[in-house]
């Protein structure tokens, strides 16, 4: 889904027909094709099959053009994207992320680190990481100015909740979602601090942008000053402060440990990858799945995910990462004892049993009822 920069004429984009723009005959044909293709298939005896989907829910998706790809630190490139015709992108709020759909099974999430006040451009910061499937390497190598990339989203599972005080803690490239949060907290006149750690100064992105905030920002390159002093900022719980943290698993785990004694809901964090799960003592069991709105009762065998079973029944549900990280498949739970295995909901949210990520989580009770 990447088209590198090459031709001088801009390649035809599969821009969606928007409600603000007119729609020509060829677009109409495309719409009609979508509608008759795959949905409402009939079986040989003329009966409608059980897999008819009357409502198809999907996320906003568009092919965006890379305006600029600039190296902003060792191994970090800041990529600015927009539509080919300069039309506005969907509105977002600090903490939101988008997917780069690099190919059908290589999807990577990147936090938006531009400003919501600029509806014409999005920016992400991407660290070249030795990743088994080469997601970030493809981004670094192919997404140069003029290249085109399929983007899905935005969505936000790391929202900035109103508070008089904030403590932001970033490790390395985890600074990206915090940049727009800091801008908003600062605009709203909140009392905030940023603790930003990294391997060495040269590897830490966006230091120039952060310089304008003066001593609210504490930069801690590990080779100069060692590890972040979490004890000094988190040692004493505060009831008027929200903690926002993004970074590598080691940092997140340490911050989680420190925040155990903080009031519930104080800590908000976002993971790059799935949280290490303790292996379940028993094998996955089968259960019955009721989709309330659709009026369907299904069977989830031990070797299939809830998401797979829902999709096989032809019911439309959003999903993206398939590993419980991105939050796209969050679904409202009506009833059932959910076995949460995602990396998004915190303990209290999991205990409330109101939502589950159907890509990874399962059910301990014999029956699970979802609002689908």
């Amino acid at each position, binding site marked *: 889904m990447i088209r590198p920069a090459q031709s001088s004429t801009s390649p035809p984009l599969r821009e*969606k027909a928007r*409600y603000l723009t*007119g*729609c020509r*005959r060829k677009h*109409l044909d495309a*719409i*009609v094709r979508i*509608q008759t293709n795959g*949905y*409402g298939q009939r079986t040989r005896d003329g009966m409608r099959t059980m897999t008819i*989907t*009357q*409502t*198809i*829910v*999907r*996320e*906003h998706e568009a092919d965006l053009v890379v305006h600029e790809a600039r190296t902003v630190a060792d191994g970090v490139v800041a990529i600015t994207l927009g539509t080919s015709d300069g039309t506005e992108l*969907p*509105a*977002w*709020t600090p903490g939101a992320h988008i997917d780069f759909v690099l190919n059908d099974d290589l999807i990577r999430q990147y936090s938006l680190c531009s*400003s*919501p*006040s600029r*509806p014409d451009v999005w920016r992400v910061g991407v660290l070249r990481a030795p990743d088994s499937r080469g997601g970030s390497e493809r981004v670094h190598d192919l997404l140069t100015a003029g290249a085109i990339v399929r983007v899905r*989203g*935005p*969505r*936000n599972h790391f*929202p*900035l*909740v*109103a*508070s*008089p005080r904030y403590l932001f803690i970033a490790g390395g490239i985890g600074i990206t979602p915090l940049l727009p949060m800091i*801008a*908003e*907290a600062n*605009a*709203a*006149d*909140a009392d905030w601090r940023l603790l930003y750690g990294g391997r060495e100064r040269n590897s830490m992105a966006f230091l120039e942008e952060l310089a304008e905030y003066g001593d609210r920002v504490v930069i801690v390159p590990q080779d100069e000053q060692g590890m972040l002093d979490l004890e000094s900022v988190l040692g004493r719980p505060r009831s008027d402060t929200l903690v926002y943290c993004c970074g590598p698993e080691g940092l997140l785990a340490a911050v989680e440990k420190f925040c155990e004694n903080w009031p*519930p*809901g*104080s800590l908000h964090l976002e993971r790059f990858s799935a949280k290490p799960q303790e292996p379940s003592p028993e094998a996955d069991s089968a259960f019955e799945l009721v989709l*309330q*709105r*659709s009026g369907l009762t299904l069977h989830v065998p031990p070797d299939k995910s809830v998401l797979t079973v829902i999709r096989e029944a032809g*019911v*439309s549900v*959003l999903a993206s990462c398939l590993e419980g990280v991105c939050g796209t498949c969050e679904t*409202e739970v009506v009833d059932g004892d959910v076995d949460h295995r995602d990396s998004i909901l915190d303990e*209290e*949210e999991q205990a*409330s049993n*109101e*939502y589950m990520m159907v890509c990874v989580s399962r059910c301990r009770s014999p029956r699970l009822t979802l*609002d689908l």
Partner: protein
Amino acid sequence: MNQQASSRSPRTQVHPHNCWYSVATSQEVGREPLGRRVLETGVVLFRTTDGTAVALEDRCAHRPYPLSLGRVDGDRIVSGYTGFVYDARGYCVHVPTQSEIPVGARVPAFPVHEDGHFVWVWPGEPALARLHPPTATPWLNDPGWATLGDEWETEADLLLLHENFGDITHVAVVDPYIAPPVLRSSPPPLEVEVTETTVSFSRTYQPAPIPEWQAELLGLSADAEHVQHEQGAFVTPGLWVDRWDVYVDTGANESQIHTFRFTHAITPIAPGRTRHAWRVSRNFAFGEQAGKVLLPIFTDYYKRVKQILETMQDVLDADGPRMEINVSADAAALQVRKIIRNMVAEETGMAYRRAPRSASSPRRR
């Protein structure tokens, strides 16, 4: 960050404050003060000498008397009871009984955005307004579109209005005359597209007749069949935009698209009370006569909708909210609920998001 939620309203907040809401049309705001309410707060609107629209809290800082009952003097507004004078930023600049201005004497000022048709205000944290660009509805000022409409208060909650716009299948039940005949047949699949902050839906109908009144305006036979495309978008808690396209073949694989564009600027006055400004724009049949035909058709329809929503609010007020049964086609409306709920949770500093088990809030005065 959210001082307004704690100091202005001690009660549970149910609507987002950090949003642009339309409070008046540009024409309504002039050199005479105009009083409106949004989110249980009075707002006074007026224009300064250079024509800039100003929105201040409609309550004198000295005594609880609305500034909208006072008068505009140059770029200032004078209380009709206390004689306190406020500038366009809300600062008190004169009191009748002493030469010094009491420390901290001011009324809150709301960020204002004017787009040539509506005057929008931002009732939330003022500093955040600039991070949220107002959405544009340029067709309302575009000579390529003929626009008609009206505005009124609906005694029903903002969420009930959103849920109504989120599913137009009721149109055929509410008003068979206005409804395109395709709405009475089994509908084609509905495509719902979501982002973090918006929801849109669309569906395309196989060729079918259009309503008689529309065929007449277009000079087409009432039996002729046309492909029709429907699209709706929840843009913000204060704005819905919909369109209905009729494709009329003009031969040689070309077709002309006749479009109705519907704009709903909706503003929570209080829980259970909503200001509804509706506009119907069209890119065909520009004549005055066509407008005379269309205005009563749409006015009648939106009045019926108003009545139905008010009845629903009455039921909610009398019997309380209940768990509702939803169907697949409610996907868009449910997503709107979720977006609004999350916005409120984030503004009010609620640590956890809670699922809405039923629709709307009871009426408050």
